């Protein structure tokens, strides 16, 4: 059955960008093979589609990525910026040794400060003790030393036996 121009005119606009099904495409092709008017229509749409490609493209400004980050940080509250920077830094594996070193330094500083304050408190604690208590402490220290000496003697004797 021969299709009429009215039916085909409905399909022609989509023919130029391959928007038709295989059957519809065949219908158009069969029809324009014998109809000069519709063939001209197809060519006109094709030409328009090609003309649209002639519009120039613009390129973004070279610093568009850094501009974006600047704009973004100007819109965000400072604490969000700080957290984001921290997250980004942590996600970069090459900064891991830096963070580990910093953590060790912080830990050592905390321990040193704590020990310093404990040593500072010794004279005050000693002053508060009675003479008997001081003697007991002295004996306890002597006893500890004696244990150590005994252990050393034991090992030396064992070595001599061997």
């Amino acid at each position: 059955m021969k299709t009429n121009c009215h039916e085909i005119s409905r399909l022609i606009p989509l023919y130029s960008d391959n928007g038709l099904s295989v059957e519809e495409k065949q219908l158009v092709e069969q029809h324009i093979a014998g109809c000069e008017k519709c063939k001209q229509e197809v060519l006109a749409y094709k030409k328009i589609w090609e003309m649209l490609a002639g519009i120039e493209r613009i390129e973004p400004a070279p610093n568009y990525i850094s501009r974006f980050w600047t704009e973004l940080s100007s819109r965000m509250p400072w604490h969000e910026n700080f957290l984001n920077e921290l997250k980004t830094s942590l996600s970069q594996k090459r900064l891991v040794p830096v963070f580990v070193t910093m953590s060790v330094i912080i830990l050592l500083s905390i321990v040193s400060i704590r020990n310093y304050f404990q040593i500072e408190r010794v004279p005050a604690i000693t002053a508060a003790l009675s003479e008997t208590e001081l003697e007991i402490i002295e004996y306890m220290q002597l006893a500890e030393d004696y244990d150590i000496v005994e252990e050393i003697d034991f090992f030396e004797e064992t070595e001599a036996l061997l």
Partner: protein
Amino acid sequence: MPQECPENKTNSYYSDPDVRLMLDFQQGNKRAFEKLMRLYFPRLLNFIYRFIPNRETAEDLTQEVFIKVYKSAAAYIPLSKFQTWIFTIAKNISLNEIRRNKNSGLSLDEAFGSEKNTLKDQIEDKTIPCPDRNIMQEEIASAVKAAINSLPENQRVAVLLCRYEKFSYKEIAETMNLSVEAVKSLLSRGKENLKGRLAGIIDNN
């Protein structure tokens, strides 16, 4: 045997490399976001520029698209291809800007030449006896821009996505939240309108 990721079973969009980049960014990878910017910024800039022919405004609006993407990263769930999603944002931002300017009485179409200087006037300009080829090309380009700009919003979006972004009808339908049939109809009418506007040029070439 390695287990298949459960995401892949339920959501085919996870195989889209750009969706993967967005998900990487969601995990805190800033470089993934910058890669997306390098891929999409120039495309979106031109897409928006064809709506709003002012370079500075188009750059600002493109930046706005990426700020939206950045802010919605935490809640991002891939429900479409990444390009469909980001072009939907760009389309909405562009249309909002056009409406905002219409309401404030400003015209964004001036760069394409005012309506007084119609295509017919440009083609039938007898003051130029033998127009240089480049000038002719420029005039054609400006007539094409004006013709695109004269299309109703929906037709314009469909034509731009189809012609310049090479979107399939299905992708256009997803971007515009329409059926494929509606997209076909929009494109048909859009092309008919363009043909009507550019008839003079076709006849003269």
